[in-house]
């Protein structure tokens, strides 16, 4: 089901590839070929850094079909450092740790699996960066 759609969206989903506007430099995600700011054509591909912060969020206890496997989970609006807002699941954190304004980074994870025999869909989620330890003397 929808194999071709998953295939078409893979650059966007695996590595946050969007577009940049030639005229005013605004970055677009998801790609829509026309600049939201100046309406000029925006077709040049741009790979987002994957860094951003949590703009708002909600925890899903009663998930839509296909996402039961992961519930409960938290979905957030992420404000990417380049500007656009993107909706994505949070991962690698407990729901009670989530705060508005929290810095997050993009990771590629399993979004869903279409039954035991269908395809596995991978895509972006966001999480807090891995905390850096003080390096112990070698």
């Amino acid at each position: 089901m929808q194999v071709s759609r998953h295939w078409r969206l893979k650059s966007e989903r695996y590595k946050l590839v969007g577009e940049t506007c030639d005229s005013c430099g605004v970055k677009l995600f998801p790609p829509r070929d026309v600049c939201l700011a100046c309406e000029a054509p925006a077709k040049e591909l741009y790979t987002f850094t994957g860094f951003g912060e949590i703009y708002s969020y909600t925890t899903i206890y009663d998930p839509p079909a296909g996402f039961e496997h992961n519930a409960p989970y938290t979905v957030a609006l992420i404000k990417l450092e380049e500007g656009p807002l993107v909706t994505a699941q949070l991962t690698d954190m407990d729901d009670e740790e989530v705060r508005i304004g929290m810095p997050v980074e993009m990771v590629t994870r399993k979004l869903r699996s279409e039954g035991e025999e269908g395809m596995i869909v991978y895509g972006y989620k966001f999480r807090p960066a891995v905390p850096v330890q003080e390096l112990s003397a070698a």
Partner: protein
Amino acid sequence: MTENQKSEGLMRPHHEVGIVGYGAYVPRFRLPATEIDRMWKGGKGGAPIKEKSVPGLDEDVVTMSIEAARNAMARAQIDPREIRAVWVGSESHPYAVKPTSTVVAEAIGAVPHTQAADWEFACKAGTEAMQAAIGFVGSGMARYALSIGMDTAQGRPGDALEYTAAAGGAALLIGRGEEALAVIEGSYSFVTDTPDFWRRAHAEYPSHGDRFTGEPAYFKHVISASEALMGGVGRTAADYQWAVFHQPNVKFPSRAAKMLGFAPEQIAPGLLSNRIGNTYAGSAVIGLTAVLDIAQPRDRILVVSYGSGAGSDAFDLRVTDRILETRGLAPTTEDYIARRKVIDYATYTRYRDKLKMS
């Protein structure tokens, strides 16, 4: 063994090659071995390790390989379009048919002008990919080749392997010697047909030959490969600052090190099994990334994998000055190990898909 026999089988490419980027990955969940003991032995059975790493519901060998590969690329600072091979060694590829490696190659921007393949040989699939990458770069066919060892290992509930079957691994970007943070000065492989551990195509959990796993399997292959490599390059245990051996538990690699003349301090930084378990195809390579995180220029490192069925790949590495400028560019192996959330057996059964939903 004569001098001549000692160097037989040593593998060296035409051009000097080495590791130009490396990256580790360990999921954040930990299952203490005492939880498994509580479940199956009434808390009286003891535990071979402290705890093992467990992948989250949205993780598998594809997602874990992507993160390790991104860390390797962050350290290497090269254009991914110059990579000519993306090779993932694992015994837990998510699909039976459909490569893990193409998804990883796509995610890091290495497509389409690249080789991509999945490697299999129980726990040494990762070092096999590494050895092939040495050949690809050393022959001049490729500027860079990415080799990954990664697993989400499963143990049958209640089985001895359930205590240690864990998730994690590492990615190693192989390139020319002059760009390397560690030059690979030689490698060696030792294999025989040994039935110590296997899993048939449609079986969910592996089977093993119990007492067969020690002497004729792990020790014979690890010791033989280590001795042949060290003989081939003309070094002894004292010439290495660090050694890493495949770690199905703590006991086996510790004993192998002792038999070969290595002191406990030489294996300590790379011996992670007590804290993350046996990461199968990831085990030897993530031990290596932990050592690279702390090694100094000119340190020598011995790395020896083991895969059931059975065989060992052994590598002789020399760290270069480049280690100092590259290792801070991505999270260290210890950063991932320190990021931990302990779970109980019930959560573990859900995360590892052991609950029948219909």
